């Protein structure tokens, strides 16, 4: 049984079709990279799995999206519960203008967790998992916005991990960061896949090759090719994939 699955998905924003007939399965504890030229639908596809596209009211969808074999778009589905299970990290770090501690505790608090010890434990653990603990342990009450960009992004990862999701969606998580911060996060992704199923959108081919197990290549809303990362980067089936990963267009 796969962890995440899309079946015959078509998605429209108004009259514009952003995703065309996409079917794809992602296994538990793997990292899947979504690659393709700008505007091909990577972010839209990623945001299907935590229903963040719902925020646009001209969105129409057909097909089925399964998380843990459950259709997350059926009428009775609980969107808030889904988003606790499927965490997200955005392209630009977007911490709340609160303290470091309160940022990580946010997800717990909105879940009604009151136990102070438990909250502290989860905050500590999440910061450790996001390799931010050593940077901030001296003062968790500092405003999050005082952290560097790279640290802020790790804080956002910690914030997502605090509610104990099983899936982590990352939309170009390193594209706004300096190379050193980016490689810290890459290492993090590699470690996190032991516990989580990760989907990461990236424009950086080396990054996709380094961190992912499987890679999906999108072009103009279509899924051109989906295979083991090694194969996609060495001998893909489609000429278009070949051209893209070798940098001949895109």
């Amino acid at each position, binding site marked *: 049984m796969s962890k995440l699955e899309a079946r015959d998905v078509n998605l429209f924003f108004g009259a514009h079709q952003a995703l065309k007939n996409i079917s794809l399965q992602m296994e538990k504890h793997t990292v899947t990279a979504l690659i393709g030229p700008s505007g091909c639908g990577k972010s839209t596809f990623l945001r299907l799995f935590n229903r963040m596209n719902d925020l646009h*009211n001209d969105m129409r969808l057909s097909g089925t999206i399964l998380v843990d074999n459950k259709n997350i778009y059926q009428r009775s589905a609980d969107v808030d519960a889904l988003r606790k299970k499927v*965490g997200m990290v955005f392209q630009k770090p977007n911490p709340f203008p*609160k303290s470091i501690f309160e940022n990580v505790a946010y997800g717990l608090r909105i879940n009604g967790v009151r136990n102070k010890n438990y909250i502290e434990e989860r905050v500590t653990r999440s910061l450790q998992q996001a390799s931010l603990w050593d940077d901030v342990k001296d003062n968790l009450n500092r405003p999050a916005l005082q952290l560097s960009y790279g640290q802020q992004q790790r804080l956002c990862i910690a914030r997502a991990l605090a509610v104990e999701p099983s899936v982590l969606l990352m939309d170009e998580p390193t594209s706004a960061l300096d190379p050193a911060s980016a490689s810290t996060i890459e290492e993090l992704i590699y470690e996190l896949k032991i516990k989580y199923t990760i989907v990461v959108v990236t424009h950086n081919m080396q990054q996709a090759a380094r961190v992912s197990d499987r890679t999906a290549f999108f072009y103009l809303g279509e899924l051109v090719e989906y295979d083991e990362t090694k194969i996609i980067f060495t001998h893909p089936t489609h000429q278009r994939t070949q051209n893209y990963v070798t940098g001949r267009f895109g």
Partner: protein
Amino acid sequence: MSKKLMQAVMFTLFRLLSLMVVCILFSIVGFIAYRGLAVLRPQFITGLPENGMTEGGIFPAIVGTLCLMTGSLLIAFPVGLLSGIYVSEFAPDNRLKRFIQIMTNSLAGTPSIIFGLFGMALFVNQLGFGDSILAGSLTLAILVLPVIIRSTEESLNAVNPAIRQASYALGATRWQTVYRALLPLALPDILSGLLVSFSRVSGETAPILFTVAAYYLPRMPSSVYDQVMALPYHLYVLSTSGTDPEATRSMAYGTALLLILIVLFFNVLTVLVRRLLSKYVNIK
């Protein structure tokens, strides 16, 4: 003309123009202060009007205006805040929402005498509140409601959308997102909107003319069903239709000055609260 020279000329022009605006403002306030300061003694502030309002103080009018400000904002703030939140965060983005927005805008631009007539018809007569603080406050509340709704809506919209997304992505409900993530950030701006309403309420004459304001009533209100005197109406009475407008001219300036001081006080208060709040928001 060279680009640099052009820029210098334009900048000087702008600077002169803005200086002019400031000068006009200062001369208005200065003129009123100059004419009014002499009468602004403690007895004027705490005393009752005497001798056909040609002597004594304006205490009942001060109390009346404070009652109306408090009353109308107790009604308008919660209603306006919740409506603004609804329009900004909950209402589906459809025709109905746009209709509400257009109606709110036109309501904000409606002449205040219309509100006065409406308040008289509904609160004074239909609901039988009579000329009273209640009827006046309700009328003033309706007058400033659109301002509060708009400022709430705009303050929430001005919050970085990434914050909203971050909150939703963690599984927060709409209300949790509003309450925990957006409101703390929007609050300083919402407060500024509240201040504008406060100043507006303190100075409006037309809406209270038929709903609460008393020509002469030298005692304190004992319930919300009482009439009161109010500063702007008293000002009007003193300078045009009093027993002796010439004799009360300086009292009129004193009243005007006090009205300006009240508005100024709330301005300063809001700036302080705003500053305190933004500091708190950025840390907690």
